[in-house]
């Protein structure tokens, strides 16, 4: 018997598999397909102070082993998330959930986190300072250590829940940003958000995506994600939630060996709606294949 349990910021989860924000809605679409209580937890759709339509369409483009998206934080706003979405979520998911929060100013982040902090079923708050798809938005906070630290400090002040800061890979030095978040009281960092990319339509001779650029996700970004998790693990003491191209149980092991305590599964949920469940089912077999008894033992073991 293998043990897939891990402890993420003081909360033990049955396994380290966490569908990533923006690929799992508020869970109930997937609950029609399988019992989502098999998940470690999941990170719900990025929530902002005000309702947002997001970007114009097309928002999606095909890439080699991946996709671009430029949804742009479409969500009904934090009030509706709390009054409508979370109650629906709680009917189908009975574990602590991870709330994902975005914003366009420090005040907005603080406002939204404060509201979310009052929700009992939220186990962790994941603060996205790295969305590449909103102009003048969250991304700018994620590309400097100072701004990242400032947001962390501000939201830290309004919540006692475990606080996870989600980092952008579109930077020269992700390590310094992770360290700034740690210094200002983050309980964990999650990485990587999408790589900024573009595809051009040869027929129309214009970018495929209306927003021009989009965030690149899928297996194609996994080597970059593994590298960044490995580098950040060397520099911080707080846990890392690793993501970027995770699609198999083998990928979970690779990401944890690099230094992740838990992993998020993103784009894979979109091409195979059962992906997260399938990974969880396959984990024990793959752990046995590679001689891993306790998943906790391999966190950062490649260092």
């Amino acid at each position, binding site marked *: 018997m293998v043990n897939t349990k891990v402890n993420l910021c003081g909360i033990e989860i049955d396994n380290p598999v966490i569908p990533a924000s923006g690929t799992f*809605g508020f869970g109930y679409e*997937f609950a029609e397909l399988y019992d989502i209580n098999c998940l470690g937890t999941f990170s719900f759709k990025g929530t902002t102070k005000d309702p947002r339509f997001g970007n114009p369409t*097309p*928002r*999606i483009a095909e890439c080699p082993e991946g996709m671009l998206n430029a949804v742009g934080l479409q969500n009904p706003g934090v009030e509706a998330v709390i009054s409508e979405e979370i109650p629906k979520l709680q009917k189908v998911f009975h574990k602590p959930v991870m709330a994902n929060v975005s914003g366009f100013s420090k005040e907005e982040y603080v406002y939204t986190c404060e509201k979310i902090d009052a929700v009992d079923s939220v186990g962790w708050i994941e603060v996205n300072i790295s969305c590449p798809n909103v102009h003048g938005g969250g991304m700018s906070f994620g590309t400097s250590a100072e701004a990242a630290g400032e947001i962390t400090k501000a939201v830290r002040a309004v919540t006692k829940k475990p606080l996870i800061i989600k980092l952008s890979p579109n930077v020269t030095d992700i390590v310094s940003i992770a360290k700034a978040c740690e210094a200002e009281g983050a309980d964990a960092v999650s990485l990587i958000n999408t790589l900024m990319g573009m595809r051009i339509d040869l027929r129309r001779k214009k970018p495929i995506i209306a927003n021009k650029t989009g965030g690149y996700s899928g297996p194609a970004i996994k080597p970059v994600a593994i590298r960044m998790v490995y580098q950040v693990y060397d520099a911080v003491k707080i846990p890392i939630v690793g993501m970027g191209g995770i699609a198999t149980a083998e990928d979970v092991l690779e990401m944890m060996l690099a230094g992740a305590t838990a992993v998020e599964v993103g*784009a894979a949920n979109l*091409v195979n*709606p059962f992906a997260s469940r399938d990974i969880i089912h396959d984990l024990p077999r793959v752990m046995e294949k590679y001689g891993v008894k306790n998943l906790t033992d391999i966190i950062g073991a490649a260092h």
Partner: protein
Amino acid sequence: MTQGIYEIRSNVKIARDVYEMVLSGDTSAITAPGQFLNIKIEGLYLRRPISICDWDAETITILYKVVGEGTEKMADMTAGGKLDILVGLGNGFDMNFAGERPLLVGGGVGTPPMYGLCKRLVAMGKKPIVILGYASAEDVLYEAKFLEMGVDVRIATVDGTRGVKGFVTHAMDGLDYTYFYACGPIPMLKALSDASNTSGELSFEERMGCGFGACMGCTCKTKYGNKRICRDGPVLKKEEVIW
């Protein structure tokens, strides 16, 4: 929605750049004409959404036009091949509103869902009028199959090589109908919506991430709020569309 492995029974070219593929497997998830499939194609990351043309207890027929990498790969597929497909996606057309003489309008590869819809309306005892629009005679799809059902079929071609010269709206003049259903390019849908004197339903296309409502990749604004083309659509009511 179900996910399953489907076997290709046949895959033949039936018009310029357009192929008909018959798939066998579980069809129980299909609840209405106008729904679509999302097909995993080896070597491509995202699934490809294709409208359902027709189905029975064990087969699904789709018509698709070769327009890019995904459909190029599909055109090369042969009988016996297997495909991983999500089936029964989207809302589909609501046949309860049809009335006695519904108008069905298909533009180009908007034709296929009209076929499955027409078949079911005829079975319900309705008398559909079908208008199909194409660029040219060599693009016409399924005309004989519509005629077999004994319905009134009118063709419009932009170059006048078949039927009425012009757009589908040019074939509508003076028609008396109770409701309309349409699928085709946006300019056609808009022109039709403007020209129509009844209520109706229109099927839209958009680039999709997942096809089942998770990613918000295909959202559009409607008079009744944001809708995901893949899940809350692809069929919208005339009255809610914001052009």
